[in-house]
């Protein structure tokens, strides 16, 4: 046991060293290059870094946020032209760059405001239009030098006395370093997780409080800022900028870098940029075959390493390191023993939770998991804590209607949910249960009717605003962000509480660390509360479906919910686990003044904890009331059991 854990630790150290050593080696190479290369290859290296910076921005938009834009050449051109035109008019080069950045951001905001409303394919098409417009403006405007172009100033922080290309190289290297760090910070921040959320599961992200449209717009603007800076240093490198440099060849280059390097990989952006800047130089003699070789390279990458060369290569290297590691520690190669310990360690804790009726300790665990509550939001709104509240309903649905393609899914549905009440929503398949949750959370617009939370009308709000009112839900088919761990997925639920701005996110943990850690603790405790602590570090895609549903429950819990809408969370778990879950839900609503709607098919499970029951059949309410009397109704028995 002892040597096994030791072996495992050495292995992880080896891996960690492998990961950070990459960065150090990269830095060393960057610093050494000017002393190793002649001025031509230093120029190639500088060009590589400029493309890499642009690609990092492109990766944020296309890879992380899933918005395929073909207009990345536009901000790139703005950067190059802004510094060229600015300095031609006697404006300081850095001020010109700043003006360029602002201009890019404004243009992206305006263009994105219109085009980001379009669905993927049409968005990509619309962005092509932007490139055409830009090229026309550059070729015909009086201040751009027309088709023959305009000379662009070199961008340097200062002179080293080693020659202008060395000065430029060091400046670009510094810019690249900043861009790389900012991208890494962004990826590990709330904003980065929200980007992934709108890419994979936009509906679920909205119900976590992520404003989908605004987040797309943010990604669009951030990516254009990267491109503007990259364009400016690029212009300085090639001295003269003209419209034909910023056409479709450039867009294809950006796409190729992204595909070959990897869509969400920082190192991949460098690898891709290096390949596509260096290769043309090598392939000079093969002139005609150059594009052919490029095309083949892209096709082969898509076939053999669809995630991109860097992620695939890194995976192979990691596997190799692990293998070498286990050979070095042959005596401790029996890894399963080491693995079993933490997993089985959970069992006693859970078994205890099952038998101990007192919910005290768990309640405390949740209390700590809970983020700072806004004043007055804690239990105590209602005069009798621990009991179902009276007076104003927490959630009220009145005359809700919805039809799909002319077929009514909900007709004139009304219901009330009091504070701390648990309502079971049951009905045959296709009776409208999920549609009702979709209409309440505004994932779908209702055709008619109103929904109020604590008396306030939410039926005209957008989904993320409904989330901000404390309405949280799970999905019938789990909606989680792939490529993230279980813990990171849960953390997405606290998007509103985190309030992390894009600037802070780019700045990194120094600005966001405290809030990130606080939410991380809360997420960990929410997982513990549901008995899922051991899954925290696992990639969410490796977790079984039923557990994924419970991860969604944890994601709801850290969002300071007032109303929880659970869509079949007990499907696929066994009766013992159901008992545990029922107990958790029951104590949560009492301790935190939460009202719960449970959509379920397992009546044993819901009757254990539900205070009331609403039965839907073909979109209409056929029974509403106390569970035992509802279940005794002949109409219900016929609809549900066919008896």
């Amino acid at each position, binding site marked *: 046991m002892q040597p096994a854990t030791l072996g495992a630790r050495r292995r992880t150290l080896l891996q960690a060293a492998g990961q950070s050593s990459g960065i150090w080696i990269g830095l060393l190479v960057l610093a050494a290059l000017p002393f190793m290369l002649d001025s031509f290859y230093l120029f190639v290296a500088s060009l590589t870094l400029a493309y890499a910076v642009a690609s990092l921005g492109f990766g944020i938009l296309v890879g992380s946020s899933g918005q395929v834009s073909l207009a990345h050449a536009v901000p790139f051109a703005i950067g190059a032209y802004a510094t060229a035109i600015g300095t031609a008019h006697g404006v300081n080069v850095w001020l010109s760059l700043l003006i360029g950045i602002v201009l890019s951001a404004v243009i992206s905001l305006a263009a994105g405001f219109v085009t980001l409303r379009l669905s993927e394919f049409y968005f990509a098409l619309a962005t092509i239009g932007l490139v055409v417009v830009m090229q026309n403006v550059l070729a015909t405007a009086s201040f751009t030098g027309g088709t023959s172009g305009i000379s662009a100033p070199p961008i340097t922080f200062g002179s080293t006395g080693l020659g202008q290309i060395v000065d430029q190289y060091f400046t670009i290297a510094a810019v690249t370093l900043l861009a790389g760090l900012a991208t890494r910070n962004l990826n590990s921040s709330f904003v980065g997780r929200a980007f992934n959320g709108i890419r994979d599961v936009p509906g679920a992200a909205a119900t976590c409080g992520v404003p989908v449209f605004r987040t797309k717009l943010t990604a669009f603007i951030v990516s254009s800022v990267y491109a503007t800076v990259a364009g400016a240093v690029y212009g300085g490198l090639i001295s003269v900028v003209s419209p034909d440099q910023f056409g479709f060849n450039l867009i294809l280059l950006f796409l190729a870098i992204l595909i070959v390097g990897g869509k969400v990989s920082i190192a991949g952006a460098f690898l891709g940029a290096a390949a596509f800047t260096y290769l043309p130089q090598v392939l000079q003699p093969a002139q005609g075959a150059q594009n052919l070789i490029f095309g083949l390279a892209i096709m082969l990458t898509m076939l053999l390493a669809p995630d991109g060369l860097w992620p695939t290569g890194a995976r192979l290297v990691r596997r190799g390191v692990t293998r070498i590691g286990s050979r070095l520690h042959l005596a401790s190669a029996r*890894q399963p023993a080491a693995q079993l310990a933490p997993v089985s360690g959970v069992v006693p804790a859970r078994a205890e939770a099952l038998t101990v009726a007192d919910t005290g300790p768990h309640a405390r665990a949740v209390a700590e998991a809970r983020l700072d509550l806004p004043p007055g939001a804690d239990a105590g709104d209602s005069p009798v804590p621990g009991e179902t509240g009276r007076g104003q309903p927490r959630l009220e649905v009145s005359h809700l209607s919805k039809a799909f393609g002319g077929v009514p899914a909900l007709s004139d549905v009304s219901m009330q949910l009091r504070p701390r009440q648990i309502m079971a929503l049951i009905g045959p398949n*296709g009776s409208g249960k999920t549609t009702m949750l979709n209409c309440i959370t505004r994932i779908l617009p209702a055709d008619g009717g109103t929904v109020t939370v604590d008396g306030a009308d939410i039926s005209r709000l957008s989904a993320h605003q409904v989330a901000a009112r404390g309405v949280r839900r799970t999905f019938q088919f789990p909606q989680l962000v792939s490529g993230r761990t279980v813990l990171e997925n849960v953390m997405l639920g606290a998007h509103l509480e985190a309030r992390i701005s894009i600037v802070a996110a780019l700045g990194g943990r120094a600005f966001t660390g405290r809030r990130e850690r606080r939410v991380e603790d809360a997420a960990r405790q929410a997982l513990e509360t549901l008995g899922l602590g051991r899954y925290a570090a696992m990639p969410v895609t490796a977790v*079984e479906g*039923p*557990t994924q549903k419970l991860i969604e429950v944890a994601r709801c819990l850290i969002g300071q919910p007032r109303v929880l809408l659970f869509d079949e969370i007990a499907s*696929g778990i066994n009766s013992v686990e159901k008992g545990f879950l029922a107990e958790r839900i029951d104590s949560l609503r009492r301790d935190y003044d939460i009202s719960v709607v449970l959509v379920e098919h397992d009546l044993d499970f819901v009757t254990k904890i539900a205070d009331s029951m609403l039965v839907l059949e073909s979109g209409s309410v056929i029974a509403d009331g106390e569970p035992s009397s509802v279940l005794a109704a002949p109409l219900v028995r016929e609809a549900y059991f066919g008896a």
Partner: protein
Amino acid sequence: MPSPSLQVTGITVKYGDFTALRDVTVEAAGNSITAVLGANGAGKTTLLRTISGIVRPRAGSVTLGDRRLDTQAPHVVARLGVVQLPEGRGVFPDMTVEENLVLAALYHRRSPWSTAAKKQLEPVYEQFPMLAQKRAAHAWTLSGGQQQLLAIARSLLLRPAVLLADELSFGLAPIMADAVFDQVAQANTEDGTTVLMVEQNVGRALEMASQVYVLRTGSVVYAGPAQPLIENKDKLFSYMIA
């Protein structure tokens, strides 16, 4: 039509560093119903995914009769008659319910538009009146549970040699779940389909299965007939805690 037996021998499956299955041996005899029980995360779904070729084992083998399955691609395994159920909500949203169902004929390389293919649907409609009622409706207008049912009904139409049934009752109202279980039992008795079922509806699983395996954190902790577990519920529940 006798079905070959499905033999899983000593398989170990890992996701990265996480060991999902450890030296698991499971046999589903030809023409029988075998149930796999266990807590959430015990590795039941991983077992089925390994058999259907989606996940590769680090050690051990999977054979169907005398054919090795664990070296085959998923589509080859499916062609050999091993069908996993349900395949999520794998329905074609813009096709009608009936069009979705007749597609099953393609599996046997027959025309989906033949009268024979249509005729096959009659018993399905009889068993699931909901599908009959919605036969002309586009699949996207169906609820999640109804789509699930449609996918199950279509897979049963394939008349597979081996059926890997993963949580058939998932998301289905009791009346629908019963109809699905009946259909599976019927496939077993009439077509001789070998069934390996993962089920949380323990009562129903024990009732249907002749052989039962219980998994716990990736290992088999019980292998034997259903009867002892029916008689000793406490023992069963002690297995079911993660």
